[in-house]
């Protein structure tokens, strides 16, 4: 079997990473770090008490430290597509054009896939909860929730309550990820006939709200399934918290690109590639992430009416 495996061209990798950041709420709001392929062990380090005020000759007390190890293990995200084998005999310029188009698509899919896996713990392709990632997802780890009233007049109050929940748990809020539903609700809020948040009107997606970094993304409210046979349901309308300090993510390995000429690499009914004069383009990336303190986040979840 002849398979050419290449690492992504350097400028395509830079392009891909910037595009992923542009489309993923977590990549935009969180902190990117290098992740070892075998995983990173990071420690959360909490000082249990405040500093002690000690009088002259006074006795000093124990402050205490709580240390908890958290391992960031990268998981594999893959996307592939069949194209005509004319790709192989095309000129270099045409090959680059195809690769750039593939890069555009792969970046979008990788960005939304990363959000879906890390927020909802699902396999992005099937939207079914995956054992690989569910225990490392916001939906499982973050138990502080506020019920979304589904009314335009209270969307901002819901956000304020979520912020209050995080602050009440001794956390800080450094970012907001909201669904298009919440964006529309904010846009609809009026006082005396005037829009309170005109920056959200007409589908606009501002990069901040009240000085806080903001990301509007449909991945926040992606409908997911608990099992393959279950009905899909939206489980989040917004996630609010300390993305800058308590969420880290990174690429675990060089992003690879393969042009596969033989076999049935997508295990599909389309059959053998050579039998159909096709080649298979495959991009793979390893992404790892960790939520260091779930209490530093709160989710706004749909009410009974959804």
């Amino acid at each position, binding site marked *: 079997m002849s398979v050419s495996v290449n690492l992504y061209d350097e400028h395509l990798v830079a392009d891909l990473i910037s595009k992923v950041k542009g489309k993923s709420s977590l990549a935009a709001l969180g902190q990117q770090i290098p992740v070892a392929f075998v995983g990173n062990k990071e420690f959360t380090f909490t000082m249990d008490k405040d500093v002690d005020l000690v009088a002259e000759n006074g006795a000093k007390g124990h402050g205490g430290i709580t240390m908890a190890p958290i391992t960031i293990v990268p998981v594999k995200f893959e996307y592939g597509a069949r194209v005509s084998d004319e790709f192989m005999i095309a000129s270099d310029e045409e090959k680059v054009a195809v690769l750039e188009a593939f890069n555009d698509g792969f970046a979008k899919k990788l960005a939304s896939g990363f959000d879906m896996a890390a927020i909802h713990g699902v396999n992005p392709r099937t939207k079914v909860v995956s054992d690989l990632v569910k225990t490392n997802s916001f939906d499982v780890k973050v*138990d*502080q*929730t*506020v*019920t*979304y*009233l589904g009314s335009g007049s*209270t969307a901002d*109050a*819901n956000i304020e*309550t979520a912020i*209050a*929940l995080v*602050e*009440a*748990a*001794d956390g800080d809020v450094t970012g907001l990820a909201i669904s298009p539903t919440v964006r529309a609700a904010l846009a609809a809020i009026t006082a005396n006939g005037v829009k309170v948040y005109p920056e959200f009107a007409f589908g606009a997606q501002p990069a901040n709200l009240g000085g806080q970094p903001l990301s509007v993304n449909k991945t926040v409210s992606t409908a997911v399934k608990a099992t393959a046979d279950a009905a899909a349901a939206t489980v989040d309308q917004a996630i609010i918290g300390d993305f800058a300090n308590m969420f880290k993510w990174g690429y675990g390995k060089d992003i690879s690109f393969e042009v596969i000429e033989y076999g049935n690499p997508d295990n599909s009914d389309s059959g053998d590639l050579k039998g159909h004069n096709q080649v298979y383009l495959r991009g793979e990336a390893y992404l790892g992430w960790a939520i260091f303190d779930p*209490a530093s986040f*709160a989710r706004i979840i749909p*009410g009974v009416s959804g």
Partner: protein
Amino acid sequence: MLYKNVKTGIIIESLTECRGADLIQIESAPIYEEKKPAAEPQVTKTTAKRAKKNERSSK
């Protein structure tokens, strides 16, 4: 509704239901007290007679 974080003791108010491992609901009734209208002064028979007397004497 009022909720309290039992770890930090911080109380928050919310229009809607909140949940969390460290959160307990401490007040489910509306958090804003309704203002009762001020009681009107009651007019008794004696006060009415005095008022009439005063009116006559002023004339």
